[in-house]
């Protein structure tokens, strides 16, 4: 068993090192040469060479990112903040959009699971809307909520059309796994439980809360977990398009600023945060595995 445990640390580590090495090999590096220009002065010329000349090496990435990682909550300016501060902003937005997705998606899932007619009526619409990319939803959200504007005391807009569109996009993209899984869960409720409800003559609301919801919970939480993954996936696209500060916005802005090392920092951050969220949700999911 000891051997096995060591493996589970060593093997991933080896894989990470291998990927790092691959990255190092294809990354470009700065080469400085001195040469005489047309006037005979010696000038230093710095050029980047390599398989992918503009890709920074791991060392360069770390050097450029150090400030953001070691001081993760710093605020040096609206668009120059510590990486975790950006992450936090993104997480807040994701949480809001995700909440809307669950509140809207779960009842839709229940209707789909309970009523055959509802399913027949709405299934085509759902199947068509489900694969639409967040990049496509966002402009529609901008149009839909173009009139939204909440102004605070100082006359600054605290919640504008782009915020509403961002929430709309996250919610509508993240909603589908919850909808589908809830529907499947409701259909999978054993007939025995429903018979119990019938024999006891439970009222509709009691059947829902005492029988259907608890029996569906495991499925619902699987949906919730997948939804959270998608919500986090969508955030980058949303922040890029709306220019909101956040980890995705930072990524896009640093790309435009030719600061490529920060892109890699952002990607790694997004990946790690996504992984942590998924783990957290699966812990919650396990708690609700009742049946």
């Amino acid at each position, binding site marked *: 068993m000891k051997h096995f445990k060591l493996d589970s640390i060593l093997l991933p580590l080896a894989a990470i090192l291998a990927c790092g090495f691959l990255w190092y090999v294809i990354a470009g590096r700065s080469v400085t040469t001195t040469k005489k220009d047309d006037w005979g002065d010696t000038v230093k010329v710095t050029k980047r060479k390599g398989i992918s000349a503009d890709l920074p090496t791991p060392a360069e990435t770390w050097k450029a990112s150090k400030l953001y990682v070691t001081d993760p909550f710093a605020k040096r300016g609206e668009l120059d903040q510590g990486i975790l501060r950006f992450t936090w902003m993104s997480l807040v937005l994701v949480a809001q959009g995700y909440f809307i997705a669950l509140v809207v998606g779960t009842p839709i899932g229940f209707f789909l699971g309970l009523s055959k007619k509802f399913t027949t009526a709405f299934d085509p619409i759902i199947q068509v809307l489900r694969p639409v990319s967040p990049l496509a939803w966002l402009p529609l959200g901008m149009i839909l909520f173009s009139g939204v504007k909440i102004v605070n005391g100082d006359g600054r807009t605290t919640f504008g059309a782009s915020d509403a569109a961002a929430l709309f996009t996250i919610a509508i993209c993240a909603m589908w796994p919850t909808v589908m899984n809830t529907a499947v869960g409701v259909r999978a409720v054993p007939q025995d439980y429903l018979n119990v409800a019938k024999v006891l003559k439970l009222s509709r609301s009691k059947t829902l809360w005492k029988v259907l919801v*608890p029996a569906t919970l495991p499925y619902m939480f699987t949906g919730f977990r997948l939804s959270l993954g998608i919500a986090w996936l969508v955030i980058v696209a949303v922040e890029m398009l709306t220019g909101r500060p956040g980890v995705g916005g930072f990524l896009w802005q640093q790309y435009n600023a030719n600061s490529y090392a920060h892109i890699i920092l952002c990607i790694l951050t997004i990946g790690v945060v996504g992984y942590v969220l998924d783990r957290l949700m699966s812990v919650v999911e396990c708690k609700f595995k*009742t049946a």
Partner: protein
Amino acid sequence: MALIEIKQASKGFGTEGARTEVLKGINLFVQEGEFIVIIGYSGSGKTTLVNLISGLGRADSGDVLMDGRAITGPGPDRGLVFQNYSLLPWLNVTENIALAVDEVFPDWTKGQRAEHVAKYIAMVKLSPAAHKLPRELSGGMRQRVSVARALAMTPRVLLLDEPLSALDALTRATLQDEISDIWLKNKTTVIWVTNDPDEAILLADRVIPLLPTSPATLGEALTVDIERPRDRKAINHDPRFKKLRAQLINTLLDAKGKNKVKSSRKLVLPDILPEDLTKVNTLQFLNRRGPKRRNELKLEEVEVTA
């Protein structure tokens, strides 16, 4: 008047074309306070029959009456004990029973209801496990909870659909004795469905076989005139028990034997002749014309060695 009357009821499943008739011409009269056991092979429609009485299913034709009124749906006056317990796994023993009690006695105070629940948990000897979840209980204990849940609704009829068939023989014996004791105390009308002849005779006032004809019908009822309480050990040597048992098993076996369907169907064999495979692996395959049919042959040569 009988408490439950079933007159010429029939029930089938499926739509036109793919329809199977399960029950036909069912007549059953159950008096108040009677212990009826319906016995039959598995798959012969016992659960369908119970569902007609519980109201989970409706008869296609005929009448199913309780107190002279047609049964249109399930209700708390008919307590149902399911074969697979059907306890809600997210509620503990007390909550499972309370769910039923709260529904049936909404005007009682909380204290009254809690007391009522505790009384029935004690009746099935589960007080120490009152706060356990179903998954922490053994099969026998789960079925006791299910019985307690049905009894706690103080139903006029207790319907038990193969309540003990998922249990091992020893647990089954214990539970038979316990349920029969409980019945002796409060004399609720019981309709018990089983596939075990010993169980049937041990428990019943009347045993009614469900004959595995297709569709199934009820056979002649056997009255069990052995006095209660019946002792499991002594009854094995009772000549009346032996006679009833033999009678019951004969009825069921005879019905099964008569029911064997002889099928006579003309099978049409394929009218095709094997291909000459020696041609397949040579260039002659270009001249192949596929398999021949016997009716295409004008002349068939048969070599006969004399």
